[in-house]
C-alpha cells in the first residue's frame, strides 16, 4: 500500500475519541470540525474534497462527477471503477496499514513533506 496512515489523537489529552461536526453552507466548502470527545477542544478542521457514502457509492459518484468532467469514456470508466471498489475492504486494509506502520507525525508535518506531493 503506497500510503501512510495516522490515527488522529487529541494533542491536548491524547484521546482518540472524537466528534465530527460537518458544516454545510451556501458558497462554502463542506467543512468537518473534529472535536475531542473527552476534553472538547478543537483537534482539526478539514475541507471536504470528495464524499462517498459506503452504502450508496454510485449515487455519491453521480453527485461529484458533475464538476469533474472528462472527454474520455476510458477515463470516466476508470473513475467509476475506483468508486465501485469495495470501501469496507479498502478500510480494513487501511486499518491494517496503521497497525503495521503507524504514522506518528503531526498532520501539518506530513503536508510539509515534499515526497507526498501535497
Amino acid at each position, binding site marked *: 500500500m503506497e500510503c501512510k496512515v495516522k490515527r488522529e489523537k487529541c494533542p491536548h489529552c491524547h484521546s482518540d475519541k472524537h466528534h465530527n461536526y460537518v458544516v454545510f453552507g451556501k458558497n462554502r466548502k463542506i467543512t468537518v470540525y473534529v472535536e475531542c470527545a473527552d476534553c472538547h477542544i478543537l483537534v482539526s478542521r478539514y475541507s471536504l474534497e470528495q464524499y462517498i457514502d459506503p452504502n450508496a457509492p454510485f449515487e455519491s459518484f453521480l*453527485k461529484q462527477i458533475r464538476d469533474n468532467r472528462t472527454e474520455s469514456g476510458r477515463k470516466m470508466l476508470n473513475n467509476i471503477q475506483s468508486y465501485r471498489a469495495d470501501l469496507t475492504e479498502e478500510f480494513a486494509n487501511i486499518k491494517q496499514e496503521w497497525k503495521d506502520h503507524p504514522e506518528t507525525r503531526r498532520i501539518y508535518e506530513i503536508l510539509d513533506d515534499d515526497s507526498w506531493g501535497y
Partner: protein
Amino acid sequence: MKKSNLTNWILGIIVGLVVYLIPLSGINEAAHRCLAIFVWAIFMWVSEALPLFVTALAILFFESLLLKPVLNVPLEKFFSPFFSSTIALFMGGLVLADTLQKYHIDEMLAHRLLKRAGKNPASLLLMMILTTAFISMWMSNTAATAMMMAIAVSVTRNISADDPFRKSMILGIPVAANIGGMGTPVGTPPNAVALQFLNKGEMHVSFVKWMIITVPIMILLLIVSWRLLLYFFPPRAHSADLPLLSGEKLDRRQKSVLTIFAITLILWLTEPWHGLKSGVVALVPVILVFGGNLLNPGDFRKIEWDILFLLGGGMTLGAAVEDSGLSKYVIGMLSLDGVSPYLLFIILTSFTVLLSTFISHTSAANILIPMAAGLQQTSAGIISLGIGLASSLAMSLPISTPPNAIAFGSGQITIKEMFKVGLIIGLIGLALLASGGYIWFKLFKL
C-alpha cells in the same frame, strides 16, 4: 508516468519520425512534415498516452517548430484557432451550463418536466429521454447524464429487480444525452469542430440554422431509441414512481440566471436579424454572469479549459493540413476525383462511428474533419456536419462516451445489452444520415 503511457509516448515519436523519413513521391516538404504531425496526433489521441488537451498543445508546438520554417504563413495562423469565434461560442456555452448547474436550474427544469410524465412506464421513459436530451443540448452530455441518472436510479429502486424496464431507464439516459448533444452547436465539442469547418469561406451556419438542420434528426432518433428500448426491455410493472421532486420557487439569483440564459438564447436564435455572430453573442453570458457576481473568479478558473484547448488543437491541425498542401496531396493520392460526394459521405460517417466507439468523440472529429473537409471541396460542409453528427452516434461500448461509462457504472446493465442497443441506434442513425439526412443537408446548400 505509467509505463504503458511512456511506451506509447516513445512509440508515437517513432511513428511520426518513420512517417517523415519514408520517401513519398510528389509530396512537398511542408505537407510531409504536416503528415508526420498528423499521424503522431492520431496515435496520441487514440492511445491517450497524454491527456487529450496536451496532445492538442503539442500539435501547436510541432507546427511552430517544424512547419513554420518551411511555410510562408505567420505564426498566428497556428495560434489563432485556439481563440477563434467557435471557441468563444463553446466557452459561452460552458459558462452558461456551469451557471445553470451552480444555481440548480437544470435540476429544477428536469423536475418540472418530469412531473408531467405520469406513472405509465412507457411515458415516463419517453419523458426521461426527452428531458435528458433537452438538457444535453445546452450542457455537457456528462453533466446531463450525471444529473438524470440520479433520478433514473431512484426510479429503478421502486421497480422489481427482474423487470427489464430497469434497464431501459438506465440505458435511456446516455442514449438521450448522446443524441441530445447533436441539437445545438454547444451541445457537444465535435459540433464545434464541424461548425468551424462549416463557417469557412462563403458558407455560414448560424446557431439557429444548426438547430433547424439537426433538431428534426435528433427528435426522430430519440423517438426511435425510445421504441427500441421498450422493444428490448418491455416494462412488466403497470406503473413507475418518480422520487419526490423539488417544487421550489425560483429565488432572485436564479431568476437572474434564467434571464441571462433567455437573452443569450434569443440573441443566438435571431442572428439572421441582428447579424451578431454566435461567437460574439456567447460573450454576453460570460460578461453578465461574472460581471453580475453570479459566478466568481474561482468559477472562471474551473471552466473546462481542457475541452477548449482540445478543440483548438483540432482546428490548428486543420489549418496546417490545408496550408501545407497535405489535403491536396491526399486527394491526389486517393484519386477521389471520380468518387461521388455521397459515397464519400457514407464511408466517412460510418468510419466516424467506428472510430468514435473506441476513442473520444472530440478526438475523432479533430482527426477526421480537417482531412475529410479537404477531400471534397464542393461537399466539405455536408461532410463536416455528417462527421460531427456521426460521432454522437457512437455509443455501443462503455468506453465510447462518458455517459455510457456512467450508465455501465450503475451495475444494472451488461456490456452486451449496451452493445446491442448502442449498435442498433448507431446503425439507424447512420441510415438516417445517409438517406433523408443527406437530402436534408443539401436543401440548406451546405
